[in-house]
């Protein structure tokens, strides 16, 4: 049902193509070595490696050289500079990016060509490039999961609808769309851990906002309901799990005990909804979303009512049952 699909690596070519526009990347030497792989989201500034300390050199990361590194190399005498560059570029570096449009010394281009190490340049400052690439690499290397379910934005709350096949997830999603809510993904939801406690859901590139409704076939929600009915991605804030009514299972009646499910290490509140004939599930789904919003604002109706009731019972002394 669930497939974990973390991206293990990207090539320098992909890095270049995805960022050449936004970071105005330019190729200094050649595309030889564009098949080199980047396996980590972290970046490295090789200042200490240039100065000779290579014991803890994180050479497998993208190397960033700014004014400091280039300035340092320019202070060295020719022989020492050559030696330094040979030492650092002797490592299996994926690529080196020069910020502030810095130009590498001529020897470096020669050695990089010999070792097939791509040299790139950007007009951005080191800080700006670091922020930009961190965001990009975080998104690329974020833990990901593909889950069978539907994701709908209900009153601004990202609601993931789960449950076994044919339980009515898509039908509920369609009903919610009909009532003015927005479809993010149906059937296949790509879930990314976008932050320490933040999950983001999106449709697959291929399926987008198509959905299959039993008896109806494949429909295009965007075409059928218009642009207002869809959304590209949304944070997953609550799970609504549908299951066949089971007389033995105990369902939550008061809302005092909150269930949850762990997805990619993030705890998401979960409401289990038993399916019974004649129940208007869509209205319940909207209620779940609105109640979640209230709870986010610190208003827990079940708890507040309980507190009030307890204080009320303490105030009223027990009376004899005279029936």
């Amino acid at each position, binding site marked *: 049902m669930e497939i974990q699909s973390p991206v293990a690596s990207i090539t320098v070519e992909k890095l270049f193509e995805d960022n050449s526009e936004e970071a105005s990347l330019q190729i200094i030497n050649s595309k030889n070595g564009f098949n080199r792989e980047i396996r980590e989201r972290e970046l490295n500034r090789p200042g200490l490696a240039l100065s000779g300390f290579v014991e803890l050199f994180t050479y497998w990361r993208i190397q960033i050289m700014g004014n400091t590194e280039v300035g340092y190399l320019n202070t060295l005498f020719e022989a020492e500079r050559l030696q330094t560059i040979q030492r650092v570029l002797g490592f299996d570096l994926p690529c080196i990016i020069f910020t502030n449009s810095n130009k590498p010394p001529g020897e470096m281009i020669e050695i990089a060509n010999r070792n097939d190490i791509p040299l790139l340049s950007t007009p951005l400052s080191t800080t700006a490039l670091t922020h930009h690439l961190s965001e990009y690499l975080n998104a690329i290397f974020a833990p990901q999961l593909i889950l069978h379910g539907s994701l709908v934005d209900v009153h601004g709350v990202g609601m993931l609808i789960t449950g076994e096949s044919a339980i009515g997830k898509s039908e509920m999603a369609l009903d919610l769309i009909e009532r003015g809510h927005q479809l993010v993904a149906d059937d296949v939801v790509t879930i990314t851990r976008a932050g320490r406690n933040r999950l983001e859901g999106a449709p697959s590139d291929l399926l987008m906002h198509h959905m299959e409704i039993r008896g109806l076939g494949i429909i295009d929600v965007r075409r059928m309901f218009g642009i207002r009915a869809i959304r590209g991605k949304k944070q997953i804030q609550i799970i609504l799990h549908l299951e066949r009514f089971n007389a033995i299972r105990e369902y939550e009646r008061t809302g005092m005990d909150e269930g949850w499910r762990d997805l990619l290490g993030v705890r998401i509140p979960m409401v289990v909804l038993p399916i019974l004939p004649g129940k208007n599930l869509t209205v319940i789904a909207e209620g779940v979303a609105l109640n979640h919003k209230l709870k986010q604002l610190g208003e827990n109706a079940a708890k507040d009512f309980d507190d009030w009731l307890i204080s009320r019972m303490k105030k009223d002394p*027990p009376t004899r049952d005279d*029936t």
Partner: protein
Amino acid sequence: MINRTVTIRNQLGIHARPAGQFVRIASQYKSFVYIGKNGKEVNGKSIMGVLMLAAGFGTELNLRVEGEDEEAAMAALVDLIENKKFDEE
């Protein structure tokens, strides 16, 4: 049909969690379950009904159970209120 008078023995009385426990157990039986205080009687399978009684510590309640499994249902409900005290103090 059987009737029993029970006394609430947990300090907080029948607030939300005990009401949930009561309704959950009552719903496990086929019999009709009614619970009353001062002549007001509510359906024992309805959360809001049970809460409406606002039955605090020391309150006496009248339990009325009617149906094929009334004996078992009554025994379970009395046990919950008087012996288990809703798993509270």
